[in-house]
């Protein structure tokens, strides 16, 4: 937890610091000289590269940030139930006078706290240190980025939490969620090249994550909020129900 948060703070600061050096027109020339397939991998082409949003999407928030926070939330969520059951500590915990629902809610509150911490570590450095490097997101853009980023983590970690409430060790929930995310990312990538593959976009979590557009002031598609919110909330509620009814030893 500490290392993920520290890493994100440093990464965000580094990207903010680098913007005046490599952002802008020169950066756009460099990026546009790359094959479009490579740009797609880093989440580019949908925003102007010489814009602030284009820089952050391609260099940081489009792919690298997604990988880092996905790893962080999936690892945390996978350990929440299954990790404790596998380690045997759940048996000690449930020998105490505590209800299963309370155990589950406590785990979910901790998960939500972790998501908020990761969002703070990711976006606050850009907003706070940005003025030193000529970056001004504006309050509205910052809060949109913060809220939608946090919701993205909820949508990724929620299913991992649900799987964690089903399995007996943290390995499977982590592996299944990571595999599913990889498939979603590939589906998003393929849909950028093939019209025929776009049918999956409306329900693809990865497709909705367009931080460059948010930074450039474009609104987030309402479906994005709904999809992320619904996946996150439904998964977490289902996790409480499943954990309350399962064998834990």
């Amino acid at each position, binding site marked *: 937890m500490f290392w993920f948060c520290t890493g994100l703070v440093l990464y965000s600061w580094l990207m903010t610091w680098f913007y005046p050096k490599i952002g802008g027109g020169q950066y756009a020339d460099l990026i546009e000289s790359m094959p479009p397939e490579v740009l797609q991998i880093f989440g580019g082409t949908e925003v102007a590269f010489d814009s602030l949003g284009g820089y952050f999407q391609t260099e940081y928030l489009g792919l690298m940030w997604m990988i880092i926070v996905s790893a962080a939330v999936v690892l945390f969520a996978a350990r929440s139930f299954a990790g404790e059951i596998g380690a045997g500590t759940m048996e*000690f915990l449930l020998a105490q*006078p505590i209800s299963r629902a309370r155990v589950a809610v406590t785990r979910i509150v901790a998960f939500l706290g972790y998501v908020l911490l990761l969002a703070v570590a990711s976006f606050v450095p850009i907003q706070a240190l940005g003025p030193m490097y000529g970056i001004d997101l504006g309050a509205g853009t910052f809060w949109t980025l913060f809220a939608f980023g946090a919701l993205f983590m909820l949508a990724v970690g929620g299913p991992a939490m649900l799987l964690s409430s089903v399995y007996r060790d943290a390995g499977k929930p982590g592996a299944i969620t990571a595999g599913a995310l990889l498939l979603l990312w590939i589906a998003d990538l393929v849909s950028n090249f093939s019209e025929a593959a776009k049918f999956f976009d409306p329900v693809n979590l990865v497709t909705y994550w367009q931080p460059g557009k948010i930074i450039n002031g474009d609104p987030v598609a309402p479906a994005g909020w709904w999809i992320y919110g619904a996946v996150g909330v439904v998964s977490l509620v289902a996790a409480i129900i499943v954990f309350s009814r399962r064998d834990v*030893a």
Partner: protein
Amino acid sequence: MSVGPSALLQCFARGFGTCQREGARAVEIISTQGLTKYYGKTRGIEDLSLSVPAGAVYGFLGPNGSGKTTTIRCLLGMLKPTSGEASILGQKVTLDGSDVRRHVGYVAGEVRLYERETGRWHLDYAAGFRGGKGVLTDDLVERFEFDPSKKVKELSKGNKQKLALILAMTHDPDLLILDEPTSGLDPLNQETVYQVIDERIAAGRTVFLSSHVLSEVERVCDRVGIIRAGHLVAEENVEDLLGKRLRHLEVRFGEPTAPSFLADLSGVDAVTAVSDVTLAARVKGDVVDDVLKRIAGRRVADITIQQAGLEDVFLEFYRSDGQIEESVAESAGEGEVP
């Protein structure tokens, strides 16, 4: 006789010792009816019905894989029974029975705690759920000579076991469920555990002790249930079990005697000739009178009738048509079943 939850709650308030003295005898602290648990197609326990009265030390005996831990986990609401039901302290056990667990202390068969945390942290953590520091904490820490400042990962197996025992007993629960409680402890600490159990019983508490250490059961239990391949095959007072079930007989006759002299008697088996004039045999059940009458037909130089230890009785229960190996192999094949 079982009593309702309200009567039991009154007993909680006054202590079971007081309750029993006042006449609420034979209160069932643990009761199961047809308790069955399958893990998919694998049998855990089947149709298990037992009863543990207040103030008893109930020994739950069986080899690995026989279903002891499965039973305990069903009692604690950690496993959902496939069928049947269990009740503790008059309340039906459910997966969410946190109220019942307030009155129960539990030591798991395999002690697993938070490795990065200290013993003190665990004691405080458990106290947080039970409304404050346990009344026996300081006494138990001192008697077990346990250092609570060390992290769990730094503790030996024996010290982890001590911590688990302290955690289970620190709030002086009405019911102690102990799964192999002396595992990893040296003889001195084992004796401390037995003493603490004796004290808890004297204070009116009840103990459900799962073990395959027969000497331990013989030492502390007054009633025993024997579980074999998921079934409760016997439930008796330890004294009765030891007293009537099995005896070792050795007779030195005044003349050469062949094993066939005793072998045809009902309840007598394993007749062997120790020498020309000495026979040894095993006597099962209430047939001592018949055996003595047969022996009296010859001149007897010496005779020894020794009560079998619990271990022999235990093995007898696991003998399957005279082939104990089959039973043990059957149990060993269930290694995945807790």
